[in-house]
């Protein structure tokens, strides 16, 4: 409460004493760009939307408010990476609104003040189940995309270590295994989000795919991606080439690189895949995981590495595990060490109120008792302010 008062006093001269947050909305109205600021009609106790759609300008005063991303931008910036339930919500409400929260503001502050001469800093977002780690990562990705960084977004590393239909022996290295399907879907989405970069960045060495096919030195990286997409057998190697080239060229300074990995604990756990002789495959035997591990090491500069721990898709980890040491294991922790941990927790009072008002505004909470004080208290109790739980409960109310 104190923070909001301070922020509002710094802002403008004409303020009514009884309408702190409502007045801050009026101040933003004058600076509104495209969207309308929605002010709830009855009691302007909380303002849950902001018109500031550029994450670079998000500051403490926007904490708890929702900012909306135009759907066209979502298709380009997030071809993959948004959680499934959020995508369903986007489809139903016909808009995409993210809440600005403290961990995300902290992370954006660090990203804004990165020194690109120093090695890439690793940020690990951790927290209990359903607290908003993936959404924080998506907020950071949106910021970097707006700042014209090259975003390497791996939506869920767990998908690469389980449920693989086709596991083939790698042609490059006999010990390793390729995953053509996963690699080609990732390449397709990578191309959608970073098209303009792929034309500018040139390869620095020749790559032989087969006896007849090769990519010469100096060709745009887009050709490597095309090669991976057309010849699905070489897709995993194409991913490896892309990662290697980006890592080598980023220190030269022509572009900034953001490596965003969701569920990074998958890289150092166990896999659910088996070889033909029924023996288990370990993660380093997969080409994709092997190359991604090299990417996450901080021996390059000119960007940042933002990762999320996730128990939800993880293999052989108990549901109560959420701390970095528990989920990463010794090997993973030692590789990622040193990193900056960012903890994401359940909604605060203000954030819960904002989310509740947003759902009421979008007509998501349809039950006639949901808009009463009793209903609100019951929602708070049932969900324990956990964002995931609140969303699931309000789905059927």
């Amino acid at each position, binding site marked *: 409460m104190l923070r909001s008062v301070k922020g509002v006093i710094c802002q403008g001269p004409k303020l009514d004493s009884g309408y702190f947050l409502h007045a801050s909305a009026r101040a933003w109205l004058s600076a509104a760009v495209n969207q309308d600021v929605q002010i709830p009609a009855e009691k302007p106790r909380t303002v849950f939307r902001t018109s500031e759609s550029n994450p670079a300008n998000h500051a403490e005063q926007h904490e708890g408010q929702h900012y909306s991303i135009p759907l066209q931008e979502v298709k380009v910036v997030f071809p993959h990476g948004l959680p499934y339930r959020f995508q*369903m919500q986007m*489809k*139903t*409400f*016909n808009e995409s609104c993210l809440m600005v929260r403290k961990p995300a503001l902290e992370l954006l502050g660090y990203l804004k003040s990165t020194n690109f001469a120093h090695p890439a800093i690793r940020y690990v977002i951790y927290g209990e189940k359903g607290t908003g780690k993936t959404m924080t990562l998506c907020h950071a990705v949106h910021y970097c995309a707006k700042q014209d960084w090259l975003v390497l977004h791996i939506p869920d590393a767990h998908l690469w270590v389980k449920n693989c239909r086709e596991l083939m022996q790698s042609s490059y290295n006999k010990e390793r295994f390729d995953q053509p399907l996963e690699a080609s879907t990732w390449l397709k989405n990578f191309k959608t989000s970073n098209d303009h970069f792929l034309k500018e960045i040139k390869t620095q060495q020749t790559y032989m795919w087969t006896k007849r096919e090769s990519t010469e030195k100096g060709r745009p990286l887009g050709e490597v991606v095309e090669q991976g997409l057309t010849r699905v057998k070489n897709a995993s190697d194409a991913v490896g080439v892309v990662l290697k080239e980006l890592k080598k060229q980023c220190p030269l300074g022509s572009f900034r690189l953001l490596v965003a990995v969701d569920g990074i604990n998958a890289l150092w756990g166990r896999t659910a895949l088996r070889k033909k002789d029924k023996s288990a495959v370990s993660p380093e035997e997969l080409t994709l995981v092997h190359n991604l591990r090299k990417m996450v090491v901080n021996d390059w500069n000119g960007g940042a590495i933002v990762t999320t721990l996730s128990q939800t898709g993880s293999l052989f980890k108990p549901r109560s595990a959420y701390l970095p040491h528990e989920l990463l294991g010794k090997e993973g922790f030692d590789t990622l060490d040193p990193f900056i941990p960012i903890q994401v927790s359940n909604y605060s009072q203000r954030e819960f109120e904002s989310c509740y008002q947003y759902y009421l505004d979008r*007509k*998501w909470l*349809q*039950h*006639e*008792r*949901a808009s*009463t004080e*009793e*209903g609100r208290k*019951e929602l708070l109790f049932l969900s324990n302010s956990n964002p995931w739980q609140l969303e699931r409960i309000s*789905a*059927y*109310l």
Partner: protein
Amino acid sequence: MAAPMAGRLAALGRRLAAPARAWLPGLTQVRWSRYGPSYLEPVVNKEVNRKPLEELSEEEKTQQELKALHPIKATASNVTSSVFSDPTISKFTNMMMKGGNKVLARSIVTQTLEGIKRKQLEKYYQASEEERESIECNPYIIFHQALKNCQPVIGIYNIQKGGKTYQVPSPLKDNRKRFLAMKWLITECREHKHHRTFMHEKLSQELLQAFNNEGPVIKRKHDMHKMAEANRAYAHYRWW
């Protein structure tokens, strides 16, 4: 709840007044409860306890006094004091349940309500201003209205007379109507739809159709009405 309560109070009064006939020749008690006659029904509604003393009527005052003296029965485990609890939805969940798997039945029902809400909201946000008022987005209202639309007005009973079984039309009790509506909805989704679609998808589609007074369940209701109309002649076979 009030009728057995009043009955029990009356029985209490009678027992205090005159010695009762606890045993009648030829009558054996088949269904009985572990609770004695002095046990009162539990009240789950929080609003009842919130009323100040002055607003209570005479009946409610006697009720409060009784509660201080008499023991109270335990509540059933599916009854909550939640503001969102709905007895019709609970009944529907119980009818959907197979093998005691209430978790699965409840998840199907909640997914159905979510599915109805999503479909209606998508329509709402893509419609123009004038059409928006006519689109109903509340899944509970749709559910209740759809059930009401599926309830038959008159039913058929099989009565044997002179070696032949006749389909005799007869009015139905409220509980029977509700039961038939729910049963028809569930059997329609289970049997006449593609087995690889999810139950909640099938149910949400059926409920939306029934809300608009169309679909196979409404047709079944009309078939029952037509049968009753056709067998009008045997109506006098009914003796209740």
